[in-house]
């Protein structure tokens, strides 16, 4: 656990040292703030004291921003050779992966924590369904964790950051959009695809419904991504 935290700490520091974190936070707050308060289907238009519009827009901004955060995590280490350095330190592959996962996750947590003033503002304007807001935040966190693990996997199979970014988006778009669209038609295949759609599970969470099915879904995506990353990392041990 201690080793994981050491790696997380270093990763987080490098996020903030390389301005990556600041750019990410500013852009995210800018986008979500603009669409939540000023433009389009914003809170004043809806005229309800709820953060539904914020959750709707962050669902998309995070989808694009998370691959940008995760793309460098392993691809860059592989390219510069520091992966060899890290792997030959007394840590296991799992500790490295977990360390990097938590680093990206904490960065998202910090970003989302900075949107809490939205919540406070809305709560002071009218009567807010507190449960729904908190569940919305939890939904965002679960969704972020899923995309981080997909991004980490994409980052582990290549040494090029751009390729990692695109692969993460490519895998992500299936869960984000395509499975949902395919699931809306009839038939048992559509049923399966519909279940695989991340947006369906996110929406039911953002509505304030806690279902163990949704949590299980997110956890299984996270673990599948992390296991894929571990396999990609341990590829070096296998011949051929």
């Amino acid at each position: 656990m201690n080793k994981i935290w050491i790696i997380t700490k270093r990763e987080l520091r490098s996020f903030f040292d390389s301005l990556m974190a600041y750019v990410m936070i500013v852009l995210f707050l800018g986008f979500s703030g603009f669409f939540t308060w000023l433009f389009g289907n914003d809170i004043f238009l809806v005229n309800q004291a709820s953060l539904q519009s914020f959750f709707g827009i962050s669902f998309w901004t995070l989808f694009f921003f998370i691959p940008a955060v995760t793309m460098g995590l392993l691809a860059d280490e592989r390219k510069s050779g520091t992966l060899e350095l890290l792997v030959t330190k007394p840590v296991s592959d799992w500790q490295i992966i977990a360390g990097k996962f938590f680093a990206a996750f904490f960065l998202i947590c910090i970003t989302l924590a900075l949107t809490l003033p939205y919540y406070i503002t809305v709560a002071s304007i009218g009567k807010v369904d507190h449960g729904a807001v908190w569940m919305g935040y939890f939904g965002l966190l679960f969704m972020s964790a899923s995309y981080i693990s997909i991004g980490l996997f994409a980052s582990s199979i290549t040494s090029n950051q751009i390729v990692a970014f695109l692969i993460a988006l490519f895998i992500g778009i299936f869960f984000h959009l395509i499975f949902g669209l395919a699931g809306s038609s009839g038939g048992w295949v559509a049923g399966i695809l519909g279940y695989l759609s991340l947006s369906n599970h996110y929406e039911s969470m953002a509505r304030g419904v806690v279902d163990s099915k949704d949590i299980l879904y997110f956890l299984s995506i996270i673990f599948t991504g992390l296991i894929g990353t571990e396999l990609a990392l341990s590829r070096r041990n296998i011949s051929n």
Partner: protein
Amino acid sequence: MVPFYLVTLLPCHHVTLSPCYLVTLLPCYPVTLFQSRPQYLVPLRISVKLLLNMFHEKKLHSIFALQFKKWLFMEVIVENITKTYGFQKAVDNISFKVNQGEIVGFLGPNGAGKTTTMKIITCYMRPNEGDVRIGGVSVLENPEEVKKHIGYLPEANPLYKEMPVIDYLHFVAEIQGVPSGKIRERILEMIKICGLKQERYKKINELSKGYQQRVGLAQALIHDPEVLILDEPTSGLDPNQIVEIRELIRRIGREKTVILCSHILAEVEATCDRILIISKGQLVADGTANTLRKQAQDKEIVKVTIEDGERNEIYRSLQALDAVELVDLLPANTQSYEVQSKPGISSRKAIFRLCADKGWTLTEMTPIERKLEEVFRELTITN
């Protein structure tokens, strides 16, 4: 029984019982106790036996072995490792052993499998076959434990370039498990040893290549490892730094096990106690620089300068000697010849007698030592 009681009792009559005096006597008491009551020894024996039994069980062995063996047998044993990339065998059935306190040079042309071997020893990748044991612990069974005792400087010296030197060393110390109270002290020591005092707050990518190499060395040494594996440690350094780093390696090598990977022969010869030469994934030579030279040179070659004689006659007479296989005229100096003897025989006596008989003046006779470069070329160029 009696003498021990005497030892403990006798001094009381003569000397005042100072605490200091008591301390010197303390070791006698257990002996006297067991002398008087041998039955007390039984539980002691059983517990020792149990402890030994536990020790032989694998788990405890790997945990304790390194703690106890740390000071004694921190040797690296490579057993028949093979590693294939695709159809190509990068390392083909290599075995060797490096003892504690020994600096071993690992030589080979590019692509011979040096770096792959180093990567296997440092647990970066697993071998397809075979095993590496460091202090008795296998890299296959317990890589985490092995890694704690290795300091590794990889080939291209990868570093987290965006970090300041001091932060980077702090990170490495933490991840290597240096106790948090000791980290500061170790970092300061490394900065002193590696000469990084001026540069310690700079970011690593602002440093010159030589200083980056020093940072790489500092991170390899920060946890005071028993086994040090250096892949081309002096690349990119200026001549002064090379001398310093070599000196540092020699100093460290006195109590540690060092494997130095290089293709600079002079460096290996200057620093290492023993040389391993690897070619096409196979170990082709193992020994000190001198034994390698001798091994490769079973035919004696002497350079001879003979004056006062007719050149052709000298040449023919030398060639006619029993022990001589081949005579070469050296073009630069018309009076010098290079005489190669038949395997296992020395021709020096015969040459001297020849000169004495014919009345020539022998002004020079020097055995020509083969350079390590030639030995290296001979061993690694095949077909």
